[in-house]
């Protein structure tokens, strides 16, 4: 399973909302929510975009468990 720290990282960045992150990544807010809750595993491209939007390396956002 692919786990993630998106929620914590959003909180660390001034409580960025899911909608704000979604705009930066270019997906819907519902997709960010699904990724956060581990209901959907994003493509590599979207995973990189999320990491870039949060200003961290991809390994700091996602981990394989």
């Amino acid at each position: 399973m692919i786990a993630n720290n998106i929620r914590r990282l959003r909180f660390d960045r001034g409580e960025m909302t899911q909608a704000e992150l979604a705009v930066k990544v270019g997906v819907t807010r519902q997709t960010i929510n699904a990724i956060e809750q581990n209901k959907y595993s994003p493509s590599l491209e979207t995973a990189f975009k999320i990491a870039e939007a949060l200003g961290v390396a991809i390994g700091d956002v996602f981990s394989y468990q």
Partner: protein
Amino acid sequence: MSFREKVAWICFLAMAVVYAGYFWAVLPGLASGQNVHFAGLLISAIVILAVLQIIPIVFVSAVSPKDAGQPEDEREKLIELKGSRSGYVVLTLGALVCCVAGMFFGTEPALLANYVLLAVVMAELSKLLTQIVHYRRGS
């Protein structure tokens, strides 16, 4: 609820209601051998369906134009593909049933045409329902 999920709900509900009414009016008569003029009913059903789908979708788009203008993202594309796969299975099964009905039971052409239409409608409903389920689950 995302814009595309709302559209899927609108299309599903409108299609279910309109075609339930159409088949309720046409199939019993055709099945009992009556001469039912279904072409007019079918055209009416298509027009009503278009109105019942277009007006709510325009309204939803007007309420949230930003969401409506956003292109499909990867998860939405995947959900659409899952819906299409489900619809394909239902359509294939429906086509097989129609073939059997035509070849082995000598079903009347008008009745057979409506069975084919029923298979197409069931396939579309299956596609939309699958999409709705995936949107609800978040997967």
